[in-house]
Every structure is written in C-alpha cells, then in structure tokens.
C-alpha cells in the first residue's frame, strides 16, 4: 500500500508544512477544521477539509484518538501524520492507526513507548553503552532509596518523572536535607501531570549545552544522522532559538555523538525521523538525555544545512522505501538559525499575549525561510500555543547567518500582539551569543534585560506621547495627507480609532 491521502492530525504551521511536501509528492491531504479557529490558514492548504466545528467535546479533536480514527476512516485516507505536540508521541494512537489499516507516519508504537518511558529508555541506553549522567537504574520507590542513591552519585542530582517531558515533574536537589521533601513533590507532580508517580534520579549537569541529533531510519534497518542542532537558548525548557550546526562541536565530537545517536536509535529498531537529545558539559563530555520520536519544531534548520526535506523522508520511509543516502553522503553546508516568534510579552516575563494579528509582513529574501500558520487577520487563540512564525535564516557561516538574521529581524512586521522579536533583537547582539559560550542557563542567569531597543526608539515614543498630548490638549494642527507614500495621519485620529474598540 502506497500513501495517497494523508489526514493531518494537527494544525498551524506544522499542518501547512506537511501539506506543502505532500503536494509536491502528489499526495492529497485532509485537514480538520475546529470551532476554536474555523478560519485558520492551514485549512486553505488542504485538498479536503473535515468540518469538526460542531464537536462540543471538552478534549480538542487533535487529542481525541477515537475521533481522529473515525475521521480518517470517514475521509478515506490511508495515512495519518501527527505533526508535533498533541498525539505525536502517543504509542496507543500509532497502534490504533495500524489496527485500522492506516499508515502512521512516524516510528513504531514500540519505539514510541520505549523512548517515552524514561526509565526504559535509560536502561536501553545503558545496554547500548551510551554515555549517560550517573543515576538510578530504574524507578525509585521511596525517599530512603533516593537518599542512598544520591549519596552514591553525589549532589546536585535531578529527580525526573519516568513518563515526563517538557520540564514538568523535575526537581533539582542540592543537599540530602532537601531530598525527602523534593522526592514527594516530584512524585506528586508526576502523578498529576502524567498519571504516573514513578520518578528516577540522575546526576544534575550544571550549565550544560543542549545538543540534539537528527536521526533518519528506514524499515530495512538503516539509520543515519543529519548532524546536530544547538538548542541551548531556552526558557523554562521552552526552546526559543535553535541553530545548526553547533559551534561547540568539532568534527570529531560530531562523529562521536552522531554514532551514539544512531546506536540508541538502532536499539529500538527506529524508523522515521527522530531526535536524540544530549547534554554537553563544559569539559565537552556528553550525556544522553532522551529521544523524541517525532518531527521537531526546529527541524527546518537541519533541512537548510543538509538540503533534505524531512517530511518527505518521513513519508517515503512510511511507504517502506529504503533510505537513498548513507552517512557519508550527508554534508553539512552553511549555517541556519531559527527564531520562534511567539505572541509573548517579553516585558512581562514572556507571558502569552493572545489576540488578533492585524498586520503581518515577513522578509522575502533567499536567505530567509518563514514557516507560519498565521496571516493578517488570524487570531492567536488561548486554546493552543502562542507561536506566530518560525523565522529561519541561513548564511555561509555562523557570522554570516547572524548578520542576515539581524537584518531579517528588523524586517519582520507584526501588529496586534506583542511578540518575542525584541528578545531576539537583544540576543543577536549579546556577546555570549556571538561567541557561542551560552548554555541552557543563559536566559535565567546571564541576562539582565530580555529585550532590545535602540537609544532613539524610546525618544521617538516619547515624542509621539508628547504629540498626542499636544493635539488633545492644545488643539493644534490639522491633518496632513501625503498620498504618494502612505497616508500621513494625525495621532489624534489614531487615538479615536483605538477608543472604538
């Protein structure tokens, strides 16, 4: 059976991203329209739309396995792509697709399950002799055991949820006095978040870099890696900027880490695209952290430097095709940086700022790729994440990519919500970012200010405030109109317009 019609079990930019490649491969697509955003941009990219607006269920359709399977059967697709988030790493969903004779575009349910359970993944990695932070062999059953193991490996340690991810259910413990309390908290938190109170303990690596390797495996047992991504710029375990390659790796380290990444993937007979995450400490020692069994948000930076379309590879592999390239065919060319432009207020500690996007304009340049599911008029709704767009900028080397990125950031125009743009404008000028020495602690520890503005911008804003005051209070001036290049308006008018909302 060859894939000829795919149900996209996702929304937003990733839905569009998958549909673009499907179209190139002459495969038709089905998107699901939801009541939360019935006019979303991704709807218009699909060949067929399943209208689910009448659904009054409490769980979003993209998390509703039974519903998605029934939609797949009703629309006659023979494959499902889960995208990222939602059900992308749910072994039960993958199995359900297979049981209904629908191809799941992703790894096997077995691989998803094993990598999703951190204690099983740890045991597998240990068996494959992958370097790991010292830790407990399996789950820890009580506080006494936790203290004994922590004494053995030395503080600080980190307690992690066995079924966890995304930073939840994690607790760093620095002394044995804190252990009892932290163990109970972490276990409770894990139970609440993942319905599984099991936790394990690992040596806590201070200020590491987050380096991950992109893996591709086929169903014939071939596994290769497509180099690394540097994802250390993160806030509360949410990545904000990623780049490929990483300036922390030389070719020797890349080969060594890549080999380990391939080895762990082979340990679960991995097929499809996947990501092996490592921590890299200041002595350039690396430790296996976890494997993500899905396409990642930051996959474009790898696509840019390898020239390989990862969604296309996922579809081909799901079709049973053999990988067309070997490890030695993979050449990393140039540098790519991805900025996640989110509707967040950096002046208020990155609080989400949902709202309607009034104007949106993205730079168009050969060195810029924009992956987005948002257009002028779209709403950033509170039901979903706050991503507006991914700005992916390339260059011939890191310096060139940074220079291009700086230019591109000044050309992004978004009105309607506050965005992470001022953060990136600051970051791209920060000496620690420029010299590449930043770690995952960068945002919390090294930054005093989360945003950038040039010295004249505040003055211009002050001038505008004064202008408004003058026109409101001192009844000055009439409206000047300049038809040749945009209409000149009085701020007084602007103010009145604003009050109508």
């Amino acid at each position, binding site marked *: 059976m060859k894939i000829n019609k795919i149900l996209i079990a996702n929304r937003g930019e990733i839905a569009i991203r998958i549909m673009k490649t499907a179209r190139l491969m002459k495969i038709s697509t089905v998107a699901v329209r939801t009541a939360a955003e019935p006019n979303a941009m991704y709807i218009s990219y699909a060949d067929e739309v399943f209208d689910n607006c009448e659904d009054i269920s409490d769980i979003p359709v993209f998390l509703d396995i039974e519903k998605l399977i029934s939609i797949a059967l009703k629309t006659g697709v023979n494959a499902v792509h889960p995208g990222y988030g939602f059900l992308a790493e749910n072994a039960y969903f993958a199995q359900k697709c297979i049981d209904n004779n629908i191809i799941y575009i992703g790894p096997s349910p077995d691989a998803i399950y094993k990598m999703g359970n951190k204690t099983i993944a740890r045991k597998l990695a240990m068996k494959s002799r992958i370097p790991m932070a010292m830790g407990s062999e399996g789950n820890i059953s009580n506080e006494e055991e936790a203290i004994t193991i922590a004494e053995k490996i030395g503080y600080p340690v980190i307690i992690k949820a066995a079924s966890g991810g995304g930073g939840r259910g994690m607790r760093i413990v620095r002394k044995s006095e804190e252990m009892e309390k932290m163990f109970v908290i972490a276990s409770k938190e894990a139970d609440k978040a993942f319905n599984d109170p099991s936790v394990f303990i690992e040596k806590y690596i201070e200020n590491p870099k987050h380096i991950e390797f992109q893996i591709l495996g086929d169903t014939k047992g071939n596994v290769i890696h497509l180099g690394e991504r540097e994802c250390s710029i993160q806030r509360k375990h949410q990545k904000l900027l990623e780049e490929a390659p990483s300036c922390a790796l030389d070719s020797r380290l890349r080969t060594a880490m890549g080999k380990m990444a391939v080895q762990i993937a082979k340990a679960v007979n991995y097929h499809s695209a996947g990501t092996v995450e490592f921590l890299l400490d200041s002595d350039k020692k690396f430790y296996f952290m976890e494997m993500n069994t899905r396409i990642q948000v930051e996959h474009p930076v790898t696509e840019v430097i390898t020239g390989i379309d990862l969604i296309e590879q996922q579809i081909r592999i799901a079709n049973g095709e053999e990988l067309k390239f070997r490890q030695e065919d993979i050449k990393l060319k140039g540098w790519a940086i991805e900025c996640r432009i989110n509707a967040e207020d950096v002046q208020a500690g990155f609080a989400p700022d949902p709202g309607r996007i009034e104007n949106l304009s993205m730079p168009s340049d050969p060195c810029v790729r924009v992956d987005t599911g948002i257009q002028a008029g779209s709403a950033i709704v509170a039901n979903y994440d706050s991503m507006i767009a991914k700005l992916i900028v390339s260059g011939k080397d890191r310096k060139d990519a940074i220079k291009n990125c700086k230019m591109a950031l000044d050309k992004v125009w978004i009105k309607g919500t506050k965005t992470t743009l001022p953060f990136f404008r600051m970051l791209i000028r920060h000496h620690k970012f420029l010299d590449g020495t930043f770690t995952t602690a960068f945002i919390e520890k090294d930054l005093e200010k989360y945003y950038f503005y040039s010295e004249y911008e505040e003055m211009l804003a002050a001038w505008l405030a004064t202008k*408004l*005051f*003058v026109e409101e209070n001192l009844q000055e001036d009439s409206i000047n109109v300049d038809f040749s290049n945009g209409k*000149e308006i009085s701020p007084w008018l*602007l103010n009145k317009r604003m009050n109508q909302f």
Partner: protein
Amino acid sequence: MNDKLQIKKLYALSSENRKFSFSMPLKNKIRIGKRDYIVQIKADEKLGTYILWKNRKYPVEIVRSRQNKYEILFNDISYTFTVETPFSLQRMKVLSSKRGKAEKEIVRAPMPGKIIDVLVREGSDVLRGEPVVILEAMKMQNEIQSPVNGKIIHVSAKAGTNVMKDDVLVEIKVI
C-alpha cells in the same frame, strides 16, 4: 486655555523616570547632535500605523491614553509616559516631596486562565518583579509579577479557580 501661549516646553517622563523634553510648538523634527531629522506618523493598508524616521518604518500603536498618561507600543516594546508642562512638573515635585506616594496598584489577569498558585498573603511585602500569582494559560505557567514595591492589601485570586482577562488578582499598596 490662556496659558497655552506660555508653554515653552513639554516633558515626557518615562515609567523609569527618564525625562525627554520637547520645545513648543512641537515640531515634526528631532535633533540628534547638530542635525534635525524629520519624524512622520503614517498609515497604510498593509502595515497599519507606523512612524517613519531616518528612512526606516517603525510599527507603532497607542495602547492606552488617560489624561496625560500614554502607553505606546513602539517597535514591539511598550513605553509609558506622562506628559507634563513646566508648571505641572513643578507641582508634581512639590506634591511628591510633601506626602510621598500612597497609591494603590491593582494587579489583573493579563489573559484568561487558571490560577495554579497564589504566592502572597494579605500583609506580605512584595518587591517589583516578584511573582505574586501563577496563572496557567496557553499550555504555559505564567508568573504574574508585582509591578511595584509594596504591601499586599487584598488577595482576590484563589488557587484552582478560573479567571477571565482583567479579573482582579491582588491589590498592592505602593510603598
């Protein structure tokens, strides 16, 4: 306004107490060093409202304006200014030195969501930037921070409850 003609200068005071002064009548020019640069406020279909300065366009929005207080979003950063005349500035100085500030600051929910945790009690002292409430919205736990140094005088937020945008969370007496 009879004193209109007497105003020679206006001051825009930022929330961080930076002072920008502008000569009256206000010109569409800003002087940098020895050169004047023209500032224009424009709008078009594609970009919305913007300021054109030194050949560059900056997105601009007036978020809020009340009396002489203006919140402006300029190139994705928000600034709050109060605009003062030389007289009002003088009066402000006198007043603030006489009785200090005894304002009340109301912290509201910036978005709809669920209160995960309330980190302060009535009577707690808080510092500017200190988290007072954890609000879960859009898959993220958000720290709602105190905008001022002060003392909590009322807590309306309850852990586990849902709030709408702009619901009052806590009230702080500014110290």
